[in-house]
């Protein structure tokens, strides 16, 4: 059996002290040990950005590629050898700006890669420009008067692109990570895990309203398939449907019973409710954490292998010389 040390490379980690990426890296080491997949069978692929350096801190196979292209490098690795466990480390800029096209298409293909999307809503490595997930009006070096663009919602893009798995976790929530990361690994198909991470230097506190231990209990809800949607330090709040909208209720107030609370169904192919959950925003609603969507569907790498097997079973062309033999040919 493996321990987290087996997945740790001997390089010094060079992220800023206090950066949220440290925590996700530690969680990944721990979760891989929990899962028990051998380091030799793991390939970690990344693009460019702070979080993409993660590849170097893994004692596995790894490919630190170019900006935005991690998804396609990872897809190539997985399509070529589906027996590998393939992880992609990517940031909000790498994944959703320069790599947006590859992201939606790898999700659409449902290729079996695990995408760790480090969302700190800022470009860190280029020293503080707004990203596609920065909120409208965000002031940064490249938007000194505030941005005039809307932010992307990773969950909405994932589900809109036909995604079969979406989960969310906070960098500092190690317990949640040990549920979410193994679930992403188990899911066959593209698993998108939005990791809400803090950038201490350029966007400090971007998730602070929900990330401290106290705030977490009251301002987030950890969703688990088949369990009622209850949250709060005293486990006394829950979610119900009010018409087509979600509403926070207090158990025991206005005659609300625990049995009135919605039960999370991550396996429902219809993502309507899952998307509503994923789109909940503080302060009106708790922010949804955990595995929000986890639906079984055919996945690219397996379909490709199956198609090859099917064609091979029927074809009389077994090798190059056979192929040449099928050509129209004559003696000269």
């Amino acid at each position, binding site marked *: 059996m493996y321990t987290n040390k087996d997945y740790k490379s001997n390089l010094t980690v060079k992220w800023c002290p206090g950066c949220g990426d440290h925590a996700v890296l530690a969680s990944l080491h721990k979760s891989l040990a929990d899962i028990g997949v051998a380091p030799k069978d793991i390939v970690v692929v990344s693009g460019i950005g702070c979080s993409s350096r993660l590849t170097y801190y893994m004692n596995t196979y790894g490919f630190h590629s170019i900006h935005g292209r991690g998804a396609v490098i990872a897809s190539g*690795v997985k399509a070529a050898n589906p027996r590998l466990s393939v992880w992609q480390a990517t940031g909000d800029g790498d994944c959703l700006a320069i790599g947006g096209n590859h992201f939606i298409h790898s999700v659409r293909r449902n290729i079996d890669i695990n995408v760790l999307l480090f969302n700190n809503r800022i470009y860190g490595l280029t020293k503080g420009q707004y990203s596609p997930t920065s909120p409208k009006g965000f002031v940064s070096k490249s938007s000194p008067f505030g941005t005039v663009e809307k932010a992307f919602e990773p969950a909405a893009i994932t589900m809109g692109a036909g995604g079969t798995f979406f989960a969310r976790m906070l960098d500092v929530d190690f317990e949640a990570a040990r549920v979410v990361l193994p679930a992403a690994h188990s899911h066959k198909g593209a698993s998108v895990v939005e990791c809400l991470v803090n950038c201490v230097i350029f966007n400090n506190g971007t998730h602070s309203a929900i990330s401290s231990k106290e705030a977490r209990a009251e301002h987030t809800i950890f969703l688990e398939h088949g369990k009622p949607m209850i949250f709060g330090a005293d486990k006394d709040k829950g979610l119900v449907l009010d018409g087509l909208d979600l509403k926070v209720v207090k158990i025991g107030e206005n005659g609300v019973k625990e049995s009135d609370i919605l039960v999370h169904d991550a396996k429902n192919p219809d993502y309507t409710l899952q998307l509503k959950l994923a789109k909940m925003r503080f302060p009106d609603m708790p922010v949804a954490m955990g595995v929000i969507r986890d639906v079984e569907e055919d996945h690219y790498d397996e379909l490709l292998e199956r198609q090859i097997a099917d064609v091979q079973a029927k074809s009389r062309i077994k*090798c190059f010389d056979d192929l040449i033999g099928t050509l129209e040919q*004559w003696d*000269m």
Partner: protein
Amino acid sequence: MNENKMEKLDSVVIRFSGDSGDGMQLTGTLFSSLSAILGNEIATFPDYPAEIRAPQGTVSGVSGFQVNVGSGINTPGDHADVLVVMNPAALQVNKNILKPLGVVIYDADAFGKKDLEKAGFTTDNPFVELGFKDTVQIIPVPLTSLTVKSLEGFGMDMKSMTRSKNMFALGLICWLFNRELDKAQHFLANKFAKKPDLLKANAKVLEDGFNYGHNLHLNISTFTVAKSDQLEKGKYTIISGNKATAFGLIAAAEKSGLQLFLGSYPITPATDILHELAARRDLGVKTFQAEDEIGGICTALGASYAGSLAATSTSGPGLALKSEALGLAVIAELPLVLIDVMRGGPSTGLPTKTEQTDLLQALYGRNGESPLVVMAASSPDDCFYYAYMASKIALENLTPVILLTDAFIGNGASLWKLPKLSDMPEIKPHYAPESLKDNFNGLSRDEQTKIRYWAIPSTEGFEHRVGGLERNYNTGVISTEGANHAKMVATRALKVQNIAKQLPLLEVEGDASADTLVIGWGSTRGHLQSAVAELNKRGKRTAHLHFNYINPLPSNAEELIRRYKKVIVCELNSGQFAGYLRSKIHGVDFLQVNKIEGQPFSIEELVEHIEKL
């Protein structure tokens, strides 16, 4: 047959031309196959517009297919002996193609007043208007109405019936060249195997076309064309360059014991490589049609890292998009074959026309100093060999290789002597030796050759990271240290330069002891061979040196070139190879013959320009 009027020819050039929906490519392909089966060499040149169906009857929609059949064929020919035109626009486009003693066969039903106007004619006699010499034989045949008549009782609508008129034309040409129809019927049967009704209709029209010529004793000579006397004995087929390229990759994968992976994005004129390989699931080929060109090369790079023979196919604009990822392949030192089927540029340029203008992009079109292997195929059939060799070089040296072909040889076809896999050279991928287990840093290399070792994921004890950041030569750890960077830059350059030792030596063709040397590269080989032969025939002694390996240059290139007093570099660009040679070989006055018209050289113009220099 009207044998009394039969002429014997060494070779003959036929050009079929019509609307892009008239089936000219099929007609030409069938005639080429038929000729090859009867023992002729062939060289074909499909010349088609970018539009799938441009406005009918206009010059922008004209699609042509030219084939040269006979013996001693190097090119599809400069000028046509026989021109078949389905409408006035096709005549307009091809007004300069016909030889003085040529034959034009045209669809008399399609030469009405409006048709002529649409094609820009202002009189009712386009032949006079174009100034055709009276030595040209002009044969009107009402192709459309004869086809409709031929299909009476088939229960087809008018549109479907008239679409078969290309078969009537083909039947007529078969008669003209004494081609037995049974062979043609056999090809048709293959083509329409899944559409028995269409097969019946086309077969009937084809036969009626043949009989029309035979029965009416059209007042023209028929021809027999010389069988080839230059070919090695053996089994042959006809193959296009793109198909041959795909086959070369397949052969290399099997020989090296690897899975073949193609990451690609559709682009004219390269897409047939993707088509061919997508059809080869039976051989375990994985094709990945990515969301864009970058995805094409990056999936291939990922597959390469995972241990496949990885390739990506594209044309000029796609190469531009792939350049950053190519740089990644250079610094990560991964094997990768990139095939660029060149077309006219810049930008979207002339998507269906041929050019050799991506050479400098292939050599230098990346940030930083990023040397890689650049090579070029020179005929449709040798695309097989060079795709195979590109794979071999990539796998044995852990380097990206760019193979340049172009629209002319990619879509053109020639005879191909069928190879056996056992005849092909061994391919030994540069795997990491077992001795490096637990001591492999991803940058470990053979100190003699400078070639990095390849360790494949899932191999225990070889876990490592590769990437786009510069790394320490000894430890493989990322590093921005100046002296180390200089060493890495030099190492990557030396690794590629060392490949020259693996390349075959160049051989001079033509009159090797002449004072004048004509240099070419890639797809101009056939034209240059013919031009040099013609020059020598005229007493202008000329040698010919042709390059398939461009970076690195074969090791005897400089020595050979320095033997000649006059050196002329001929290429389909403004002088890219000439400039490259100047940068490598100093003190030689490289003269140039260039053409950038989206068309191959003609032998005639080559002879003329070379003679002048």
